[in-house]
């Protein structure tokens, strides 16, 4: 029998003609791991929220949802709290209390359990999730990955049968994201909890999934296993093709039966069908002129603190797209703050276009990680007018970042991706010569990443130097001119993108990992597809 059964569900938001969910029927068996995918604004979050009564948005609704054979409208708050767990996107916004142990016990306190039982259940969960070490910590001191893991644990203590996750890893770095998804998959396998998860990045989540459900414009357009999806991928809308794992993207055209999903399966497949075993280096020519030069920079936050940057030297060429990669706490953001002179180095020199930083009049603008921090006005238009009075200038930028139809909305009413674009417009209106971006691709859907790369390319044409901090290896490999790796406070390597990812073995794209030893110098999926195509022609 199905655990969740959705029958002809249709929903539209108030004052909105379009249907957010359009006649959806879906059934889910107990213990399944389902990935719900689609581009932002396709209705996947709305569908997910409808499964939990108290989070269901207001609006016009028809159709029925049954959970364990019971109509979800008739479920009591207690049943729903005990049976269905929900983890949201932003790790910070779900935390209620100040201490980790209190956060874990919060749900159980609400259920009114006895002190002993709460103690037992939290202790059990804390050891299952490996939280024991920071059980008595303050919640504000945790890292993003730890916060999200705690949010998951604080839902799991209530022993739910169904776990709903709404883009839980979009705000995390790749290592924490992978760790989080492993834990979710472990819960599914070991405890038999039904998991429904929405995701932008499908690379890590697809290998764990039993079923993938694709939504577009409020409708379900595909429902099947990930490897079945590979076969029909070419008929799917383009956003999906950008989002699926690299092996699927590469092989979808070539496989008749099951499409490889993991890198390991991809390698096996590639050995059989690849013909050519080398691709040429794409040499990207960068300008001789240097936009930013850092010489022997040292920095620490406190006099007796540890060095964040140690003797760091770096040259960023003019009119290039320069990516700075590195793990958490390697000093990337500190480096960015030194370039835009928010922080001044303890020792060493910063030169902007050959001039001393303090004398330089070059305009540097920064797009921060939290773009909400930029919006000051009631509408996007008014917000942009604060920087630039000339309306035609605003419209020009607005069309570049595709926000013409959003100008009259309140910035906080926009979705995450839209906010990112509006913030980018605001930063661009400052007409920077050097543009600094702090993890701009975090939370972007795969399709907009392409648009974003085009925006950067057109900026480069206008003579702007773009420096980006990123965890997004695939994006950097595809679009950046040069990449630098910051490790332990200094630059471990600075190369052209292709060379950089070709030399790395672990910290590289999945295409490079897949093609290692089979196709020389292949770094992006285009490189691999090139080799395959040539064979199929022969």
């Amino acid at each position, binding site marked *: 029998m199905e655990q969740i059964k959705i029958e002809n569900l249709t929903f539209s938001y108030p004052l909105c003609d379009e249907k957010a969910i359009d006649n959806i029927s879906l059934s889910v068996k107990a213990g399944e791991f389902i990935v719900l995918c689609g581009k932002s604004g396709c209705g996947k979050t709305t569908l997910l929220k409808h499964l*939990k009564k*108290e*989070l269901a948005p207001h609006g016009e609704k028809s159709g029925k949802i049954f959970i364990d054979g019971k109509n979800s409208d008739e479920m009591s*708050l*207690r049943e*729903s*709290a*005990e049976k269905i*767990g*929900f983890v*949201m996107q*932003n790790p*910070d*916004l*779900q*935390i*209620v*209390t*100040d*201490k980790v*142990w*209190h956060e874990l016990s*919060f*749900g*159980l*306190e*609400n*259920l*009114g*359990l*006895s*002190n002993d039982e*709460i*103690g037992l259940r939290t202790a059990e969960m804390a050891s299952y999730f490996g939280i024991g070490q920071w059980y*008595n910590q*303050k*919640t*504000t001191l945790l890292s993003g990955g730890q916060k999200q893991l705690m949010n998951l644990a604080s*839902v799991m203590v*209530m022993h739910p049968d169904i776990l709903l996750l709404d883009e839980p890893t979009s705000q995390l770095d790749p290592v924490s994201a992978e760790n989080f998804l492993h834990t979710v998959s472990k819960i599914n396998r070991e405890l038999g909890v039904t998991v429904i998860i929405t995701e932008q990045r499908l690379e890590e989540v697809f290998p764990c999934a039993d079923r993938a459900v694709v939504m577009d414009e409020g409708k379900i357009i595909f429902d099947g296993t990930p490897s079945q999806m590979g076969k029909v991928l070419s008929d799917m809308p383009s956003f999906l093709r950008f989002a699926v794992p690299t092996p699927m993207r590469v092989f979808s055209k070539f496989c008749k039966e099951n499409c490889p999903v993991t890198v390991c399966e991809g390698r096996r497949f590639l050995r059989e069908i690849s013909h050519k075993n080398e691709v040429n280096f794409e040499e990207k020519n960068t300008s001789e002129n240097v936009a930013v030069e850092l010489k022997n920079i040292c920095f620490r936050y406190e006099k007796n603190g540890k060095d964040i940057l140690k003797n760091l030297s770096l040259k960023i060429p003019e009119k290039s797209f320069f990516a700075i990669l590195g793990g958490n706490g390697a000093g990337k953001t500190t480096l960015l*703050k030194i370039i*835009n002179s*928010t922080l001044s180095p303890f020792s060493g020199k910063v030169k902007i276009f050959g001039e001393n930083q303090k004398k330089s009049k070059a*305009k540097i*603008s*920064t*797009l*921060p990680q*939290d773009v*909400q*921090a*930029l*919006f*000051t006005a009631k509408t996007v238009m008014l917000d942009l007018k604060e*920087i630039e009075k000339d309306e035609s200038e605003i419209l020009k930028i607005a069309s570049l970042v595709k926000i013409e139809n959003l100008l009259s909305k309140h910035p*906080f009413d926009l979705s995450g991706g839209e906010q990112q674009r509006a913030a980018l417009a*605001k*930063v661009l209106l*400052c007409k920077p010569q050097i543009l*600094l971006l702090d993890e701009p691709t975090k939370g972007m859907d795969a399709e907009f990443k392409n648009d974003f790369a085009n925006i950067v390319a057109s900026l480069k044409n206008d003579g702007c130097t773009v420096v980006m901090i990123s965890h997004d290896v695939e994006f950097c490999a595809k679009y950046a001119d040069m990449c630098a790796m910051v490790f332990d406070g200094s630059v471990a390597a600075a190369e052209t993108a292709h060379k950089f990812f070709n030399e790395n073995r672990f910290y590289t794209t999945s295409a490079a990992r897949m093609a290692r030893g089979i196709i020389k110098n292949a770094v992006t999926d285009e490189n691999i597809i090139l080799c395959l195509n040539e064979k199929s022609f022969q």
Partner: protein
Amino acid sequence: MEAGFKGYHPVPNLIYFLSIVIFSLLFKHPLTLAVCFAASICYYIKLCGRQAVKNFFCVLLPMLVVVLLINGIFAHYGTTPIFTLPSGNKMTFEAIVYGFVLGLSAVTVMMWFFCYNEVVTADKFMFVFGKFLPAAALVFSMALRFVPLYKNRLYIIAEAQRGIGKDYKSGTLLERIKNGGKIMSILITWSLENAVEISDSMRARGYGLKGRKAYGKFKWSGKDFVAVFVIILIDILLIFGCIFKSVHCVYNPYIVINPKADFGKTYFVNQLNLTLNPTSFFGIITLIAFTVLCFLPLIIELKEDIKWNRLKSKI
């Protein structure tokens, strides 16, 4: 589990500090002052070590001197002038002594508060508080989370605005005020927006169900019962002591230590108008009880230290 009195349940912890602070403010007898001061500084040093010594000499001792001087110079009561100040005011023996008494009891109470901070952590306070007012305790806990969160967010906003040239640190005063105001306005909008999500997260975990209970990770044990029993017993003795004024002193218009008695011998120091009455039997009991109360945490610590040493020597 933490060692010593820190490892006790929040209830004895709180009752203890409540009693010690109240009684050290009530008793103004030189003996109680001395005992209380000695106990508080010993316990403070035991808990905080070097930091305590530094704090005592840099902050508390100067404070004592200031209180003493201010009371001596500006108070007009007392009957025994020692010398006349240039302003014409007479500095009296009583004012100086009472200034010392005030200063010493202020310093002592402050040291008890420092000890309180070490022993009664926010978790412990919340536990007791949550038993009586669960809803208020939750609000308190949320506030403790939001303060650092918003502080950090303010910093993020200021930095982001600076990154697009809207600096609150440079430009004309008017521009700076304008930019500063904008930073606050973003903080408020952003935080209100987020409040919706937090309330969703709370409801999703069943907040609003009837019968919510506050969870505390502290377990009641035998030693806690003994501690509460001892503290309350002493408290009762001391309350009687207060009511019957068995350790009473008067500092104005002249100093009388201990109440007038029909027994024993009374000493007078005529030059200073000082009267020293003998201590009554009940007065002695009160003093002993107060001494035990003051040194209770140290006794507990000492007992555990001895136990440890004995265990160690067995190994």
